[in-house]
């Protein structure tokens, strides 16, 4: 099925099933509500076949171009049916499983993620390890029963909802840096795991700290080989900066459109509006060519750091404009619409932090794209 055909049939189907797909009008738009809505939309789109397009047959997909996935996420996001951040975790974690898990494991697990039966999380950051990911210390040791994992992760998005975790562990010496890291696929209901949600600035407990105490993980749950965890992590990041990013761009476009409708006349400066719209043009144009390269089978690499800089810049610019145009609502409004704008404004502050900070992206651009040599 080509993109145009997919677009037509998906749009028709979404129009016809609008009622079933919409969130429960009684829901309050809390994170719990958003997660329930996400599971429902994934299940319905999976059953109708749309969610399976663009994924390989060996993991329950129907094959076809990855552009179909990009369009599906865009359509669901711009119709306001799913919240893009939680939706797009699929785009980050499923490709990793397909590339690195044992084939039987991927074949069993990926359909559960696509169908919305399960939530997965990404356990990279630790209290002592943020930007310098290679310094992580959550340890996995070999035992007769499998890996035994002890340590702590932090700011793990959706860990409190998650059934599984793609976890980076230290299996080499303490100073083995990126060479001694192994990626594991861990069941979150394993004995020895404690999850503690963390309140965030934007008011939704989006992430948690996760404690591991002698958690046993079977060897066949290793992603890639022992010591290959760094490659798993590095190969995951371009996914985060391609399809997931296209979805985010669609969301930003939808929100800027809503702002134009909602802002009282005279509150927005034309020059500011023009500049933000231009940033979105640039983001969409750049991300579209990345989507096309991905669909053509090209391997994505450090050039996606430019996409990431653009999305973070655009997101903050859109919501800075919101804070100007809807200043009263954002600052003192307590109605549901103002609460949503405020939550989104606050969340946009994290855009230059998660997924590699703005500074780390510029380091990558300088070293890898401009060939300026090592920065250490």
């Amino acid at each position, binding site marked *: 099925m080509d993109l145009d055909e997919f677009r037509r049939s998906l749009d028709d189907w979404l129009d016809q099933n609008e009622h079933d797909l919409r969130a429960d009008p009684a829901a309050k738009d809390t994170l719990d509500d958003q997660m329930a809505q996400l599971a429902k939309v994934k299940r319905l789109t999976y059953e109708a076949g749309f969610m399976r397009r663009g994924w390989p047959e060996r993991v329950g997909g129907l094959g076809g171009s990855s552009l179909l996935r990009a369009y599906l996420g865009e359509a669901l996001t711009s119709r306001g049916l799913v919240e893009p951040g939680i939706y797009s975790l699929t785009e980050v974690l499923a490709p990793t499983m397909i590339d690195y898990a044992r084939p039987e494991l991927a074949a069993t697990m990926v359909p559960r993620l696509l169908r919305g039966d399960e939530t997965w999380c990404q356990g990279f950051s630790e209290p002592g390890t943020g930007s310098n990911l290679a310094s992580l210390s959550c340890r996995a040791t070999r035992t007769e029963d499998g890996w035994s994992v002890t340590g702590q992760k932090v700011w793990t998005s959706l860990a409190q909802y998650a059934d599984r975790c793609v976890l980076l562990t230290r299996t080499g010496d303490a100073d083995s840096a990126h060479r001694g890291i192994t990626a594991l696929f861990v069941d979150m209901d394993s004995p020895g795991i404690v999850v503690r949600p963390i309140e965030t600035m934007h008011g939704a407990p989006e992430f948690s700290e996760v404690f591991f105490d002698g958690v046993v993980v079977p060897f066949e749950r290793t992603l890639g080989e022992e010591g290959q965890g760094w490659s798993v992590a590095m190969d995951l990041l371009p996914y985060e900066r391609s399809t997931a990013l296209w979805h985010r761009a669609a969301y930003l476009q939808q929100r800027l459109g809503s702002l134009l*409708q909602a802002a009282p006349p005279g509150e927005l400066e034309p020059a*500011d509006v*023009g500049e933000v*719209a*231009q940033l979105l043009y640039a983001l969409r144009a750049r991300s579209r060519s990345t989507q096309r390269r991905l669909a053509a089978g090209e391997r994505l690499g450090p050039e996606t750091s*430019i996409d990431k800089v653009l999305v973070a810049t655009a997101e903050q610019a859109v919501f800075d404009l919101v804070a100007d145009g809807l200043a009263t609502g954002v600052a003192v409004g307590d109605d549901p619409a103002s609460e949503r704008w405020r939550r989104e404004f606050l969340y946009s502050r994290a855009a230059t932090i998660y997924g590699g900070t703005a500074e780390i992206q510029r380091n990558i651009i300088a070293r890898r*794209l*401009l060939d300026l040599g090592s*920065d250490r």
Partner: protein
Amino acid sequence: MDGGDRDVFERSLRHAVETHSGGPLDAALLELGWTDALAAHTHEAVSILFELEGSLHASSSALDHVLACSLGLDVPPTAGYVLPPLGRRSPPGAVDGAHLAVRGLGTAGLLARETTVVVARAVNTEVAFLVPAADLVLRPVRGMDPELGLVEVSGTVAKDALRPEVVAPSWPAAVALAQLALGHQLVGAARTMLELARRHALERVQFGQPISGFQAVRHRLAETLVAIESAEAVLGAAWEDGSPTTAAVAKALAGRGARTAARHCQQVLAGIGFTTEHEFHHYARRALVLDELFGSSRSLTRELGTELLATRRLPDFAPL
């Protein structure tokens, strides 16, 4: 144009732009068939030539051909074109009763023309007048970038004396094509500034190390690359969708991107970049002037914002 043809075309253009500028470059472009290519392969002809002119600091009257190509008027091929005044994209002519008032710019080639084409706004469309160059005041511009060879054009001509008068409904399309050309030229100039600064950063040693090791320097150059790639991406999208709005966004991003490049690269080049011993200043000067042609980044940005606030809806740009 397929890949092989494109390479040959690019190589011959590169050779012409490396070895000539100004009038001799105009002659070389005619000889190697760029003007014919413009009609048949507009995208390649415009993007390759203008990016080369930008990156090699050359100038020509190719913009006249770009306007001729998209306006498609029935006028003598030797006529020159009057461009909009600085900072604007509106036509250079205004009909005022029995008079045509002209205020605009021209490429260097205009000084050698006998006849000029002046597009003017009429009620619902644009009309084009053929105006003898002798009836206009042409001032060769020195200004910020003397080597660009711009000409300032002004004058008031009795309308009755002018013939023929043709409707030029494709003015917005001509503006869009000129904006794409200038966008590529700005991107070319910005890429050269980045490369000059990058090489300098790797060679210049201070505090016992190349300054390329300092994060403040690295981040300025990274920022420059992001600005250039943004403009490049939207230029590509504009060629694809053919919309005047996208072309205007591309031009604005290219203009702002080149200004960003000039600012960061000048800081990295520091003292040597402030001298005329170094070639940086040529590119910085050019970027500032090109940003003002066919709509400056500032005016285009404000106009886009005004339009969005009036319609209160965003176009669906760059769809998959």
